[in-house]
């Protein structure tokens, strides 16, 4: 049933454990993402699956076969690197055909043509890598990996070197191709937004461990710890004692409480029709307002700590810096960690 199995994999360099007892499984055709900050071991895990790094402990299985000790060329996996890694002396066509030539398969020409069609590079067959844009180069790299019909496609931050607009469109295209070929894919990124939009399943990594796995919405709405809460959704994470003081109630128990910025509401201090049945109210002052496109982000200073409050940017409605407000905290949106 499981197509890819990582079984208690551990790996270290000199005096540092980089992968710490990692276990995870993927189903066939799944688009999984390894998400985590730079240096948490994402690339190392991916490279271990590819066979470019060995593991110290544990097993890796693909399609029921133990591949832990196979060389990269025996593993039937494809990989795309952040730096494209195209062969500079070969044309687009030859880059894509390279693997097929190594395998001495038939119909190289038509296979390559189909692939060039799929990644939308018709007319560029005879171009060389240095004549292509970053986005085009990455399409070639993708085609070069896919033409081999690998069992698993590994993508190590393939879009991180591209500018925002091209990145967005390539995200969509990558997703389309992945669905079309129904290929099991492991995608690495440090960008939570990218992970959210692309993945069927996300594995959040921190310091060489998988700290949470689940669908994008599971991860977003119910983070299991402070790290995930802060990394995934800019959650306001508040110490429980502090929270008790702020809301003058000890109803909630636990260590910390996490609240998403977009569930909070702001009400002018003068207003007295507060719904304190469903919400808690916290007094505060607007310290800063910033705008990220369609979202207005308020930083609200309270007696104990600062809260982020996100609003969709509607015309006319805006609190000024320095305004006195109440923050309404919906009780059912409080996540206890």
């Amino acid at each position, binding site marked *: 049933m499981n197509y890819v199995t990582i079984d208690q994999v551990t790996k270290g360099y000199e005096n540092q454990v980089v992968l710490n007892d990692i276990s995870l499984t993927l189903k066939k055709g799944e688009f999984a993402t390894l998400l985590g900050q730079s240096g948490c071991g994402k690339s190392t895990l991916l490279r271990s699956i590819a066979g470019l790094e060995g593991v110290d402990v544990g097993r890796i299985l693909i399609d029921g076969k133990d591949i832990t000790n196979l060389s990269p060329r025996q593993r039937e996996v494809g990989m795309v690197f952040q730096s494209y890694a195209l062969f*500079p*002396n*070969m044309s687009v066509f030859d880059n894509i055909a*390279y693997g097929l030539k190594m395998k001495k398969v038939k119909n190289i020409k038509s296979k390559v043509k189909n692939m060039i069609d799929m990644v939308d590079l018709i007319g560029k067959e005879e171009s060389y890598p240095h004549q292509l844009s970053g986005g085009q180069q990455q399409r070639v790299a993708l085609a070069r990996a896919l033409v081999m019909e690998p069992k698993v496609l590994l993508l190590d931050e393939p879009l991180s070197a591209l500018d925002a607009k091209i990145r967005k469109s390539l995200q969509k295209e990558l997703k389309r191709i992945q669905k079309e070929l129904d290929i099991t894919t492991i995608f690495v990124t440090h960008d939570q937004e990218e992970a959210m939009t692309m993945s069927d399943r996300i594995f959040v990594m921190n310091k060489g461990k998988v700290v949470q796995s689940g669908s994008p919405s599971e991860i977003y709405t119910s983070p299991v710890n402070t790290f995930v809460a802060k990394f995934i959704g800019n959650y306001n994470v508040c110490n429980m004692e502090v929270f008790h003081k702020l809301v003058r109630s000890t109803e909630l128990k636990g260590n910390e409480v996490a609240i998403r910025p977009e569930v909070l509401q702001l009400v002018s201090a003068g207003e007295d029709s507060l719904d304190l049945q469903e919400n808690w109210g916290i007094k505060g002052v607007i310290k800063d307002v910033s705008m990220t496109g369609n979202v207005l982000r308020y930083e609200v200073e309270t007696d104990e700590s600062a809260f982020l409050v996100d609003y969709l940017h509607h015309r006319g409605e805006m609190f000024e810096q320095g305004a006195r407000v109440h923050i309404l905290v919906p009780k059912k949106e409080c996540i206890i960690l």
Partner: protein
Amino acid sequence: MKVDGNWFNERTVKPIPKLLENKEEREVLRKIKKQKIYLLALLLPFILFVIGFEIGPLVAMIKNSFYADNGIQVTIDQYITIFKSKFYLQAIQNSLVISLFSAVTSVIIAVIAAYSITKFSQKIQNRLLMIANMTSNFEGIPLSFSFIILLGNNGLFTLLFSKIGGDVFADFNLYSWTGLILVYIYFQIPLAIMLIYPSYQGIKKQWKEASSLLGGSTLSFWLHIGIPVLLPSIVGTFSILFANSMGAYATAYALVGSNYNLLSLQIASLVASDVALKPQLGSAMGVLLAATMIGAMWFNERMMRRIRRDLR
């Protein structure tokens, strides 16, 4: 006001009179002009140097080669003399053979040696390069004498091995064709390593990884990607080595004197010997020497473009 290249271009290519009347802008233009002249002035010594010591002698040599021995009549006799003389043709042939042979051998050795150097730690790499750098400057008479002391008829190793009983150097004669080639290769290798080593830095680890994931072996990586990527540097190095040994004079002179018939030795004896000075003939041979070097470079370039079509 911001003065960048763009601004300057727009205004000079398509001057807008109204703007140029602006005093401030005229001032800026004047300053740029002044700066340009200033930069040219700084370049002047270099230009004079190139003209005086490189282009000048070259032109003089070419001109000289078209004069008769008396230096008055204009003629192509000097070239006819060379092409009719078995002796001179032999010199050209010998020079070509020894240069080709030593350049090819040195390049092959250097490609392998430079690669092994990249496998050491950075510290050791730096040390090895320093040694290569020093030894690449070790040529000419000192080098010949070192070889004579070590491998000559009464050389250290020659005597040592004959004492020990190993007849390794029994058939070896330093003052022969083999000896000459050995010395040439010796002084070419460090230079070749110095020239080829940096291009290994241009080979990305990810190319190897991609190749292996696509089913390529180490050999196929080097065959299809590694060597082609190194090729421009290999070809360039080969051209330099070829020219280097075509023109090598002091090393050969110290080792074999005029016993061995080489182009560079013949030119020297025609322009600077105490027997029969024939500077016009020497010049003609010099022109032929330069022509072979240019020919070799041209040929190398062409061959490279065939393989590296991406470089156009």
